[in-house]
């Protein structure tokens, strides 16, 4: 066949048939995927998230349907972009799973390491905490309506980062080293189940500080008498592990089309 002319503007010249499975070609495609995900290297997964926690989070979110064969199907964001007539900068949804360490109170503390995907100017459009409340076996009889007040304390923007001390109650040394803000919600519990708490401001505050650690304190007024309890970080119960969903987009602002 006639030799393939190189073209001034075609930087990439595909290998010919015999080299297709050439490892360089494969590496080029891998590099392309990592570039588009703004990653330098592929993540190093040493201790994977329990599958039960992952499946629960995905199922709760409709972010993906887990098929019988375990494969995941993902609906894309596009439908929503068309919905609000705005040209969306790249939107991503980040699910972080709760962790605990020696800085968090075992009774009421947990923290999240929220990813900003290596992007400093990520705009958080929405963030929700998902908490599972379990009706304790020894609680009042089934079907009784239980109204409790759940208080989520988080550190405000400008507060010293780190979880030393808590909002004047639990969490290590007691007394806070920074200002804590509060999200409060009345929850009506009939049975065990998931509940969400809006934490957009909290996550924006963490990103605003250039940090990614989101410390929370969870207090529930009335839970004991109602015989219910929020599940925090419990290795024995991975499928009810709290998780944080952050919907963010790259704040570039250039490509916005507004209705006039």
């Amino acid at each position, binding site marked *: 066949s006639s030799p393939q002319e190189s073209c001034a503007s075609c930087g990439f010249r*595909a290998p010919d048939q015999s080299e297709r499975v050439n490892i360089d070609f494969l590496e080029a495609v891998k590099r392309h995927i990592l570039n588009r995900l703004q990653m330098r290297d592929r*993540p190093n997964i040493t201790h994977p998230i329990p599958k039960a926690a992952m499946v629960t989070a995905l199922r709760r979110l409709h972010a993906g349907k887990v098929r019988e064969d375990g494969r995941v199907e*993902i609906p*894309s964001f*596009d439908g929503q972009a068309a919905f609000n007539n705005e040209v969306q900068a790249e939107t*991503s949804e*980040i699910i972080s799973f709760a962790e605990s360490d020696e800085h968090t109170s075992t009774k009421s503390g947990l923290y999240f390491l929220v990813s900003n995907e290596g992007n400093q100017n990520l705009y958080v459009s929405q963030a929700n905490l998902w908490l599972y409340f379990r009706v304790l076996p020894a609680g009042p009889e089934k079907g009784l309506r239980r109204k409790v007040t759940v208080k989520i304390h988080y550190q405000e923007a400008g507060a010293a980062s780190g979880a030393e001390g808590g909002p004047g109650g639990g969490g290590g040394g007691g007394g806070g080293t920074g200002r804590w803000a509060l999200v409060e919600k009345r929850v009506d519990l009939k049975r065990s189940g998931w509940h969400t708490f809006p934490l957009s401001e909290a996550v924006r505050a963490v990103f605003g500080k250039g940090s990614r650690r989101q410390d929370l304190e969870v207090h529930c007024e009335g839970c004991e008498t109602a015989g219910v309890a929020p599940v925090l970080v419990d290795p024995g119960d991975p499928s009810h592990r709290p998780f944080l969903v952050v919907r963010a987009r790259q704040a570039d602002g250039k490509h916005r089309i507004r209705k006039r």
Partner: protein
Amino acid sequence: GLECDGTSGGLCCRQQFYIDFRLIGWNDWIIAPAGYYGNYCEGSCPAYMAGVPGSASSFHTAVVNQYRMRGMSPGSVNSCCIPTKLSTMSMLYFDDEYNIVKRDVPNMIVEECGCA
């Protein structure tokens, strides 16, 4: 656009190429999809291709092709085979800190090829 399925006669076409993430050991951090269509464009763009409808990669190329067909080529630049239509890929993956990230990555899959 044309598909490189042996019938394109060496003309600019789309070559399909699928990478299964399990085969390259990436299925531990990419939850979905199961693989990636790393399609690419290959083939020649001779002058007579300029008249083939749908082969121009952009309106600008269609206009230049009209000049070329009439022998009024603006300079001696060759035409080359590039993607003319790309689509978005929705991905679900773990990052370094075990967050699950769900993202639509635009212009990720080559759907069609044409001559620029």
